[in-house]
């Protein structure tokens, strides 16, 4: 079970900024279990957004949004609505958000923070995509995670060691920041990378602070 928490509404609204039309993606897997991205939460989010004057173009609930293939298939039925939207708001774990970003060339907003993968890595199994940092930054990085995919976990990349798309650490390792810039260039949103991002709260990450969910029965 991948444990997520919904981001505060204020933060979500700040992401949506000047956008009008948004498409909501929920997940009937772990996010439904955590009550952060199931049907109820997706509908609740629709109401809240409409109350804020946004147009919700549609909702798609994927059985497991972290299954990239499945997400791609599920989106086919919604294609025109998605194309018609300014962005997608995704209510699930960091892996599901990245799966959505990888199938649509649109701005993808994270609606949740991933606080623990609970020992599993979702259904998109070919590598590390989320490191349970608890303060999801996919909003600024085009839906590609710099915490999991940059060796130095920097928030203003790429560092001076990025050459030819590879990370300085190994020629077998793609530079996460090159991927982020390629994607933001493709969706015309390089402007996401102009502000200075404040220091991250590592205290909420799985490995950065004290155990936040200690085991109750040994």
């Amino acid at each position, binding site marked *: 079970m991948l444990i997520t928490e919904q981001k505060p509404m204020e933060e979500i609204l700040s992401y949506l900024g000047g956008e009008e039309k948004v498409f909501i993606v929920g997940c009937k897997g772990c996010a439904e279990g955590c009550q952060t991205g199931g049907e109820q939460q997706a509908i609740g989010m629709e109401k809240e957004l409409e109350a804020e004057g946004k147009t919700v173009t549609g909702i798609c609930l994927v059985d497991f949004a972290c299954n990239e293939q499945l997400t791609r298939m599920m989106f086919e039925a919604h294609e025109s609505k998605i194309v018609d939207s300014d962005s997608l708001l995704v209510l699930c774990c960091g892996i599901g958000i990245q799966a959505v970003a990888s199938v649509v060339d649109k701005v993808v907003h994270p609606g949740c923070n991933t606080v623990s993968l609970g020992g599993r890595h979702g259904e998109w199994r070919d590598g590390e995509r989320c490191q349970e940092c608890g303060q999801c930054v996919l909003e600024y990085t085009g839906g590609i995670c710099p915490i999991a995919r940059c060796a130095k976990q920097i*928030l203003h990349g790429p560092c*001076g060691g990025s050459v030819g798309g590879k990370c300085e650490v190994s020629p077998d390792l793609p530079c996460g920041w090159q991927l982020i810039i390629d994607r933001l260039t493709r969706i015309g949103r390089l402007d996401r990378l102009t502000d200075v991002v404040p220091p991250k709260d590592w205290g909420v990450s799985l490995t950065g602070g004290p155990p936040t969910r200690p085991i109750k029965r040994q």
Partner: protein
Amino acid sequence: MKAGTNLEKVLESKRFAVTAEVGPPKGAGTSGVLKKGEKLKEFTDAINVTDNQTAIVRMCSLAGCTLLKRVGVDPVLQMVVRDRNRIAIQSDILGAVALGIGNILCLSGDYQSFGNHPTAKGVYDLDSVQLINTLKKMRDERKFICGEAIAGELPLFIGAVENPFADPFEYRVFRLARKVKAGVDFIQTQAVFDVARFEKWMKLIKDHGLEEQVHILAGIIPVKSAGMARYMRDYVSGVTVPDEVVTRLEQATDVKEEGLKISLEIIEQIMEIPQVHGIHIMAVGWEEIVPVIVEQAGLLPRPEV
């Protein structure tokens, strides 16, 4: 003046600056750093002390800078985010200022796997842009990251590095703009061998209107053997050495003389770019060449400011 260091004064008085670099020892002896400082001080405006460069443990930069001060050198304290969290960083900055150090150079640092403790835990609590911004906040607002007040002044001249030879090329200037926004005062670049690419990068800086906002010092690495050039070309991440440079060194009868000539040619071309405000000579292991380069490039005497 932000810190009133010699380096800042030279740059602010619009004189072409010269900085060099000293690597502290793998031990606690003081004579190496002191000697290098003595030898280089007449030929430079400030000298960087590296911070566990290539992730190899050496005497700390703070101690090295303090030693340089003893012999009258204006030191530049290099600080990497690889080994310190925000608590250690801010505390070290207070210590540096207390010891009279005003120039701080902010870097990410070479990844720990390259060094002699590859199993170390990397810290990367802040990144280099956040480090710059932290120093600015400490200096201008007299506040720590958490918002609490700092007692007294914190005069700092904030530096950072940039690599015009890393990728993605077009994006690098946007990243530099972020560093400027974060509060950087001067930039020392990665070593320039490919002057054409460097010029292209400088042009982008101008097009982005950044030239007025930050001092750029071009990096120079004097090369004393063909082997060293080949090694840098093939193995040092982020350094681009054109084949032509390697060939010239391979065919030279006096390799060191040729290496010197190459550096001087690069400096000459760089000095023609009006937006470049100085050079930073990284002659690690060949410090004796620095006075020769500075003299032959016509950059003596160094200004009294």
